[in-house]
Every structure is written in structure tokens, then in C-alpha cells.
């Protein structure tokens, strides 16, 4: 077939996809930029009035809530990613051996990842409950605490409690990717190191870890990108409370936009959030390319 004719076909074939992406992704993105510079507030008339960078200035210089939420977003992201990396890596190391039922164990350990967010959140609320929750029941029964711990209602504990849920949800991805990366570690090197008298930690640090480092960087950045923009879990578990203790950027954007109906201001905060995500994404793409080059270099 003539290549020109084929090319014309191609445009027909991508047309529906292109139309949908344009209407529901591209137009909204442009609109987000515009809206973030418009009045767009229930409190004031004339929603389309141009206000320039006023919303950005308000978020950055006038109100504490943006910086507070950014800080909590950082804690939430770092805590979740570090926790799930450690859990995922430990499990990968544990399962990195030739045993019967390996595939079954791998499948079982992946399950938390596929549970719908709403089920995850409700189920952990049930576990965390102060009157009838199983965790508090066991803690009291074994005499570890005298009165129930308010996991989600105590401002000092709420962040740690929601992070634990995200770790439970995120570790499977880390685990399965690291397990695959561990296949690249040559067994002979391990044996040689063992003969040379290297301990378990030294073998991990100097033999295993260098082989899984590029993968670790990539997967932790990816985990950070996912966690940073996660809305569902925090919203469903605490709604950003108590007393803003778990108010992260996504819940802040949602509340400003759909509760306070300050759409312009909410979008401006969303755009600032996007900037942070772009930085993470650039780091991710860079790590991805470096890892690719390493692989090519090793192959040569």
C-alpha cells in the first residue's frame, strides 16, 4: 500500500483518541492555567475577572495553610515511600530463593495493592477503631495500653496512622519490582563474598545493593509521584483532620475548590502542586535514562 495513503488512514485511526484527549485533558489543562488567574470564587461577583497571580501570592505569602500542607505532603510522601521500600525490599530478599510455591507467595503479597481504595480506607478505619477495633482490643488485652489509642483522631498520631495504610497499599509494587531486580545479582559473586568472609549485611551492602540501586531509585521516585498526588486514602481516612494534622495538598485543593467554592484559589494551589510533581517526574525520567545507559554499558 502507498505510504501516503497509509498515513492518511493513521489520522482516522487516532482521531477518536485524539479528540477525547484534547477535550478532556488538553482543554482542561489550559483552562486550569486560566482559572488559576481568575477570580472564580463564590464570595465575589464576576468569576471571570482576571486577577493575575493574586491566588498564587495568597497561597505562597499570605496564608500558612499552603506551606503547612506542602510540609505534610512531604512527610506523607517520604514516610510512605520509605516505609513501603523497606517492607518491599525485605520481602523481596526473603522470597529471593528457589522454593516451592514462590509464585503463590508473590501473588498473595501483591493482594493489598489491588484492593479498591474505598475498601482499604473503610477496612483500616474498622481496624483502628477505639471502641470495637481489633488493634485496640488486642493492645488492651495484652496490657500494652490501658486505654484505647485514638489512631485517627489524635493529631499526634493521625499522620503516622494514614502513612501505615499507604505503606500497606504501596509496598507490593516495590516488592515485585525489587524481586525482579534481584534476579540480576550474579550468584557467584555472593558465593565469592561468602568465601571471603563477608557477613550478611556486607554482602547486601556491597554485592546485592549495587545491582538493585538503579531500580530502587526509579521505583521510589515512582512511588513518590503516586503518593504525593493520592487523594482517596487521606480523604476517606481522616478528611485531612484532626485539626489539619493530615491536611495534604490534594485534600486542601479539594476542600478549597468544592467546599469553599474558591475554584480559582484551589486551582492555583493545584498548579503549585503540579510544579512539585514535574520536578519529581523530571528526576524520574532522568533516573530511567541513566538506568537504561547503565544496562547498555553493562551489556557491552
Amino acid at each position, binding site marked *: 500500500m502507498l505510504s501516503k495513503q497509509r498515513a492518511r488512514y493513521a489520522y482516522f485511526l487516532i482521531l477518536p483518541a485524539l479528540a477525547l484527549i484534547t477535550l478532556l485533558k488538553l482543554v482542561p489543562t489550559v483552562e486550569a492555567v486560566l482559572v488559576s488567574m481568575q477570580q472564580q470564587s463564590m464570595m465575589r461577583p464576576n468569576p471571570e475577572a482576571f486577577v493575575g497571580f493574586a491566588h498564587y501570592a495568597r497561597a505562597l505569602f499570605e496564608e500558612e495553610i499552603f506551606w503547612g500542607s506542602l510540609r505534610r505532603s512531604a512527610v506523607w510522601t517520604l514516610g510512605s515511600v520509605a516505609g513501603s521500600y523497606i517492607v518491599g525490599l525485605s520481602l523481596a530478599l526473603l522470597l529471593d*530463593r528457589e522454593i516451592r510455591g514462590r509464585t503463590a507467595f508473590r501473588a498473595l503479597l501483591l493482594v493489598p495493592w489491588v484492593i479498591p481504595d474505598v475498601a482499604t480506607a473503610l477496612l483500616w478505619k474498622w481496624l483502628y477503631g477505639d471502641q470495637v477495633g481489633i488493634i485496640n482490643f488486642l493492645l488492651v488485652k495484652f496490657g500494652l495500653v490501658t486505654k484505647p489509642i485514638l489512631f485517627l483522631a489524635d493529631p499526634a498520631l493521625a499522620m503516622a496512622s494514614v502513612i501505615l495504610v499507604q505503606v500497606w497499599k504501596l509496598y507490593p509494587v516495590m516488592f515485585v519490582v525489587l524481586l525482579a531486580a534481584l534476579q540480576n545479582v550474579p550468584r557467584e559473586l555472593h558465593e565469592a563474598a561468602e568465601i571471603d568472609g563477608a557477613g550478611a549485611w556486607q554482602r547486601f551492602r556491597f554485592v546485592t545493593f549495587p545491582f538493585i540501586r538503579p531500580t530502587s531509585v526509579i521505583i521510589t521516585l515512582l512511588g513518590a509521584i503516586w503518593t504525593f498526588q493520592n487523594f482517596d486514602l487521606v480523604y476517606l481516612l481522616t478528611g485531612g483532620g484532626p485539626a489539619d494534622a493530615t491536611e495534604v495538598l490534594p485534600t486542601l485543593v479539594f476542600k478549597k475548590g468544592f467546599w469553599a467554592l474558591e475554584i480559582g484559589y484551589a486551582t492555583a494551589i493545584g498548579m503549585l502542586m503540579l510544579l512539585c510533581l514535574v520536578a519529581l517526574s523530571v528526576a524520574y525520567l532522568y533516573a530511567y535514562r541513566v538506568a537504561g545507559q547503565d544496562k547498555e554499558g553493562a551489556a557491552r
Partner: protein
Amino acid sequence: MTGSAAASQEIRDTARPVDFRRPLAAAAVYFVLMSVVAFILFPIFWMVSSSFKPQTELFARDITMLPVEWTLESYRSVWQGTAFPTYFWNSFKVAALSTLCSVVISMYAAYAIARIRFAGRYAFGMLLLITQMLPHILLVIPLFLVMQRLKLLNTHTALILAYTAVSLPFTVWLLRGFFEAIPEELEDAAAIDGASLLTIFHRIILPLAGPGLAAVAMFSFIRAWNEFLFALVFLQSRVFFTLPIGLASFQEEFTFRWDLIMAGASIITVPVLFFFLLMQRFIVQGLLGGAVKG
């Protein structure tokens, strides 16, 4: 797929063998693994176990691990005494229709990118990649305004459109990989016989890409089935609620009715778990392909 066979072969070759001459060591490894799995999966066990308990046992002073008296009462109450069935069918409808749309739309687009050289091919690929990075919490505000203008707020159409658009980048990317794996010679032979591009696609490529289409369909379905934020923003009437927001609203509507909530949470999880176990291998590969190449 041949890749998976090779991968599992590789696993067998390089993984450290457990020394079965020392049965105690092997037993220790199994013991540790099983304890860890039990610990990690406990929350899911607890959800299911709670859903089979009668209300009196659920809130009894002394908590029981397994129901002393097994009952389907909470499932019956949630299905007959609440709007749960409405939410369930709404979710099913929205997920099924958006899956259909995204499979059909993405298979043509993916084929074009995989096989045809055209100006803008690269740009189209980049557009898909970049728009995938937009956080939903930012996207949902202007999308709300777009839907308002199109008079689609509080309709399932809004959700179906949004879910299709959101899953497109991923489905196109995944299907493209499947199409590229099919040998091009098959198409050349048909082209020489005078078959048109679309005939070739429908008669030769699609039948061969069956597993790929199934994988893409399940990904789209699960994604739509689980989606929370867009549904929360677009839908206002209870009769249109999907499962995630319907179930979340149980918290206010039926405070302390954990029997209903756990039964509902178990039901929403079942289809997802079923698809996952069915597609486990593809999902793992998709993850590995996405995060680390090779």
C-alpha cells in the same frame, strides 16, 4: 507470552536455592514467609470475617477471630435494606461502558502508532505520556467546569467519558506493545493479496491480540470500578452514585453499622480480586515493563 516463560526460567536459574539438605532451614524459611503473609493479609481476612458475623457478635466485648455463628445477614441487609444494589449496577454500567470505549478507541490508535509512519506520530505519543502525568485532583476542577458547560454534570456519561480519557494513555501504550510483537510479515502477505489496512487489522491483527485486548479491558474495568474522586465531584444524586462513593457515604448514613460496611467492602473487592488472580502474570509484567525496562 514467550517473555513470561523466559522470565520464570530465569528466576529458576538465578535464585538462591534453599538448602534442602538442611530441612530445618527450609522449614524456617517457610515459617517466616507464612507468618509474614498472614500478618500482612490479616486486614483482608478481618474484613471478610467481620462481614459474616451477626451484629451482636461484631460488637461483643470479647472479639472473636472467626465468626462463632456464621451468617449472611449483613449481606442480606446491605443488598435489601440499602441503596447498595443501585450503586453496584451503576458501577457495573459505568465500568463496562468505559471499558468498551477505551478498548475500541485505543486499539485503533495503538495500531496506527505501532505500524504506520505518519507525521505527528511522535508528538501524539508524547501527548499521551505527558497528559498521563496530570494529577487528577488538579484535572478534576477544570473537568468539572467542562462537564458543566456540556450539561453533563450528575450523569454517568460524564464519568464514562472521563474514565475513558484517563485510561487511554495506558491502554494505547500497552496495546501498542502487543501489536508490535506480532510479526509484520503476516500483514505484508495479506497486503499483497490486496486486503485493505482495516481488513488486515480486523481479520489478522485483532484475533492474534486477544490476550492483549483482555488485559487492557481488565485494567480499564478495574480502574473505573475503583475510581473515587471523579465520581465524588461529578455525581450529586444518590440514584446515580457508584459503589466507591456510595459505600463511603454509608459512613454517615449508617454510623456504626460496620456489618453493612464490611459486607459492602467485601463485595466491591471481589471482582477486583477475581480479575487480579486471573491476570496476575500480566499485571506483574505490566508493572515491571512500566517501572524498569528489560
